[in-house]
């Protein structure tokens, strides 16, 4: 029980540190167990410094920095035990273009290192352009959803038509 949690913490922390640095293009981060010596009672705290900034608790970072850091943590847990399917619903919403670029690089790499099938729900034109294929959901008849295949080159129009 305790031992398994501590060993999971070590693996996830190790993954988190390298994933953070790749997503931010630098900087460093770490997880800490706080508030209790018993890992089954402890809290999980996140400390991070984006490139050039001081190490501080995640709560002091900007909205986009927090989202990218939390995404690194989710991926760190995922890489500890890759699932056959991974669905991300609009996790790139608060990210600027440079961070979306690195986020997509990481998705590409994870899809090459694992057998996992990734499903990425997004409004970001940049993310769409990095996918292997696109499906569009439309409501031609109001309140009724339809799934359609979208030509990657038509994606631009899909965004514009939203």
């Amino acid at each position, binding site marked *: 029980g305790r031992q398994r949690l501590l060993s999971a913490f070590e693996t996830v922390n190790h993954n988190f540190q390298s994933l953070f640095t790749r997503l931010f293009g630098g900087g460093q981060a770490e997880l800490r167990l706080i508030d209790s010596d018993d890992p089954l009672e402890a809290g999980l705290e996140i400390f991070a410094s984006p490139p050039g900034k001081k190490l501080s608790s995640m709560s002091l970072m900007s909205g986009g920095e927090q989202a990218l850091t939390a995404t690194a943590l989710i991926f760190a847990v995922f890489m500890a035990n890759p699932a056959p399917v991974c669905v991300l619903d609009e996790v790139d919403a608060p990210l600027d273009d440079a961070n979306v670029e690195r986020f997509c690089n990481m998705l590409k790499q994870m899809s090459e290192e694992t057998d996992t099938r990734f499903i990425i*729900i997004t409004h970001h034109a940049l993310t769409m352009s990095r996918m292997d294929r696109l499906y569009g959901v439309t409501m031609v008849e109001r309140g009724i959803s339809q799934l359609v295949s979208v030509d990657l080159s038509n994606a631009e129009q899909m965004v514009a038509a939203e």
Partner: protein
Amino acid sequence: MKFENLRLVGFKSFVEPTDFEIREGLTGIVGPNGCGKSNLLEALRWVMGATSAKALRSGSMEDVIFSGTKDRPQRNWAEVILTVENTHHNLPADFNHLDTLEVSRRILRKEDGAQSIYKVNGKDVRAKDVQLIFADASTGANSPALVRQGQISELINAKPQNRRRLLEEAA
């Protein structure tokens, strides 16, 4: 396990039978606000045995049944069918001999509350059987790899004790 296809019939805004082929690599899902993208993810979690209606943005489980529009009446049942390949042979003994699994969940409206019926390859099973099948394959309704809309914000604002649960999912 390999995920092959997700079929929705009368699930939320997907009133017409809809097949979503799950392919290798990176698949993007796009569309305007409110068109049904998140409903797709919820259908996947639902068929894998999700028990919390609240985590599916529903007051009660029967809220996933198509509730009608101005031009179409509400439906009385909803069904989702997930087709997977048992590639790793890591499933519970009762199911591990199968190469292909068609897992289905159907819910019917009833006066005394809606009922979910689970099947694997046409044979009735319990909700627990379905949950164990996916748990053994390192996935399932509560898999950390299924990130709901807004879940990143929840993680950021979570109390440290609640964040630790993420580790417990990994352990």
